[in-house]
């Protein structure tokens, strides 16, 4: 379907009820999520509306995964389905001071979303490139958006990606034109404020050939106890020789549910570097899919999950080497305290013909208590014969020799353990290319390890 504008002037209203009735929704929970917002303004683009309708259909055809699904074996999301969530109709009015603590002074642009609703009063753009609300940008930049939106994050088989796509409206749109280099980071700030709010953050980044940009996705909460549901989808597309730094910080509150899909597509000799940090949420799941769609693409994917109490943090990654000469580097760390549970599944796919792929993956895990648990699974699927693929996983506790060394210098047992735990996580934090965020997270990690 070619892009086209249907009906100029007032937007027509797209009927949810109709679309959803047409689908046979087997799962009453999904029905209730869809029912949350009966009317969403239709975009003046047919393909956009069709994409949403298609997604609504898919939600109807899919079910909420259970631990019987291989991909969700270790992650029981049934607590999510015991609560009801509704999209926020209106974002609450917040004082500017409220978001002061989340501001990144280096940012050249910021888009703020409150409970999923775009908040222009907390947004600005001095980046010199397109950084705007998707709901607005879709009409202006339709031709650049249509080939990508909903085309990379596969929603036909993923109910959460489908739900997000069904709610397509506000979101972040970043388009970096050919050979443009944006030095100041673009900050996408997602603030959760309300109990039972469901939000569907959406992000599309198109980095055209030879361009460079740093994007920070930052998920924060104002209420420490409000249970809310964040279901995010990001699509990131790098054209030839484009460079992109992607920082993702999930610091939801401890009652939240956070499910996110991110799909990255890399063209020839492009370079994608990502650091994702998961600190919050009662249950979180981040699924990152990187497709090296052309020769000589490069990616570095680092992750840290630092959790305690009864938190569950699941990170699924897939690096798909589909073409020759690709490089991937991955370091994923989990620090698990209390009775928390971390899951890491790192798939490395090397397709037939993707010769001279050079890939390494390391999963390192620190268990702080006897009840802490980690399930880590490297998953290598290699169908080419001239490749270099290294992987390793370790699960352990703090080294007694290290603890003793620090104690012999006067540090208490607790201080020694905290410092070593902090150091374990700091290796990942140190890779964040935004100094203020790095510093802030170092303090957060320090505070969390000092609990």
């Amino acid at each position, binding site marked *: 379907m070619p892009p086209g504008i249907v009906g100029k002037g007032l937007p027509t209203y797209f009927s949810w009820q109709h679309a959803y009735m047409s689908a046979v929704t087997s799962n009453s929970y999904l029905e209730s999520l869809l029912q949350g917002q009966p009317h969403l303004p239709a975009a003046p683009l047919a393909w956009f509306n069709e994409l949403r309708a298609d997604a609504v259909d898919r939600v109807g055809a899919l079910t909420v995964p259970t631990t019987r699904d291989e991909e969700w074996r270790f992650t029981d999301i049934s607590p999510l389905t015991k609560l009801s969530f509704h999209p926020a109709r209106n974002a609450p009015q917040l004082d500017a001071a409220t978001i002061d603590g989340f501001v990144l002074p280096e940012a050249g642009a910021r888009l703020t979303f409150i409970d999923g609703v775009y908040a222009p009063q907390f947004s600005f753009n001095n980046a010199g490139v397109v950084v705007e609300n998707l709901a607005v940008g879709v009409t202006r930049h339709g031709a650049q958006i249509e080939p990508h939106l909903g085309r990379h994050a596969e929603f036909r088989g993923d109910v959460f990606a489908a739900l997000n796509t069904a709610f397509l409206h506000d979101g972040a749109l970043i388009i970096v034109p050919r050979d443009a280099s944006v030095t100041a980071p673009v900050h996408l700030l997602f603030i959760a404020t309300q109990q039972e709010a469901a939000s569907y953050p959406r992000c599309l980044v198109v980095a055209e050939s030879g361009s460079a940009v740093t994007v920070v996705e930052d998920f924060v909460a104002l209420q420490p106890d409000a249970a809310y549901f964040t279901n995010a989808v990001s699509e990131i597309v790098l054209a030839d020789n484009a460079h992109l730094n992607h920082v993702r910080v999930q610091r939801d509150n401890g009652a939240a549910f956070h499910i996110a899909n991110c799909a990255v597509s890399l063209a020839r000799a492009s370079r994608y570097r990502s650091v994702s940090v998961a600190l919050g949420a009662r249950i979180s799941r981040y699924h990152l899919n990187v497709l090296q769609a052309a020769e000589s693409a490069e990616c570095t994917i680092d992750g840290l999950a630092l959790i305690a109490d009864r938190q569950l943090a699941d990170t699924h990654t897939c690096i798909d080497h589909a073409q020759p000469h690709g490089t991937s580097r991955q370091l994923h760390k989990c620090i698990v305290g209390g009775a928390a549970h971390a899951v890491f599944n790192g798939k490395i796919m090397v397709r037939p013909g993707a010769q001279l792929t050079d890939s390494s993956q390391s999963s390192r895990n620190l268990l702080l208590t006897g009840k802490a648990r980690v399930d880590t699974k490297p998953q290598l699927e290699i169908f080419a014969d001239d490749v270099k693929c290294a992987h390793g996983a370790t699960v352990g506790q703090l*080294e*007694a*020799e*290290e603890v*003793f*060394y*620090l*104690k*012999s*210098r*006067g*540090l*208490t*047992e607790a*201080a*020694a353990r905290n*410092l*070593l735990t*902090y*150091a*374990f*996580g*700091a*290796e990942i934090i*140190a890779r964040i290319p935004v100094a203020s965020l790095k510093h802030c997270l170092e303090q957060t990690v320090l505070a969390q390890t000092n609990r």
Partner: protein
Amino acid sequence: MIYQDSKTLLAVRGLRVTVNDIEILKGIDLTVKSGEVHAIMGPNGSGKSTFAKALAGHPAYVVTGGEVMFEGKNLFELAPEARARAGVFLGFQYPIEIPGVANSQFLRLAYNTVQAQRGKDELDPLEFDDFVREKMKLLEMNPDFLDRSVNEGFSGGEKKRNEILQMALLEPKLAILDETDSGLDIDALRTVANGVNQLATCDNAIVLVTHYQRMLNYIVPDYVHVMEGGRIIKTGGKELAVELETRGYDWVGVEYKINARPAA
């Protein structure tokens, strides 16, 4: 240096220690007074390092007998960190690498912890930076080592300098230096020894644990003790170290057995 009427810092009586249920120390007696430098020498496996680690409170070293008084207090009633704060310092034979912790951060944390314990002022990062740079000059250390992770990627000599730097910061009453000379070239040895000598006062004491005599050319001991089989089998002055260097350790053991026989 031996001073008249100096007080006893460390009194070890009949110390027995096991590691993994194997008895390594079989009754050690040693008295160290303030101002003194003691060298504990002996072949590999004689128990020298075990003695050093047991004094510092390493959890793998289990005390099964005897007592150790430090300034009149039972040392074994103190946790390792409390011993450090009370003024016991162990210079590690193999200093531990701690990736992710900046050396400056570690040094300041250790310094401030001990300062607080002594009721003295703690230093903020800027004040500490000036302070530690002065101390580093003593050991001819490059200030770049402050920004690197603790001991990570340091050469053997750099690690040992970093140990003595910690000694300089913490100002212990009793410094036990375990094989501080191993892995040092002669220039580094001279520098490190010079640093230790400058830290020695009439109020503190140093116990050097070493296999070789060469460090004792630079840090001159008042007493030399020879360990074998978990016991101190001979004690002499600095000339004993020279004799050990030329004659080896075997003769000391033979002499000990001959002397011990009538008593047995």
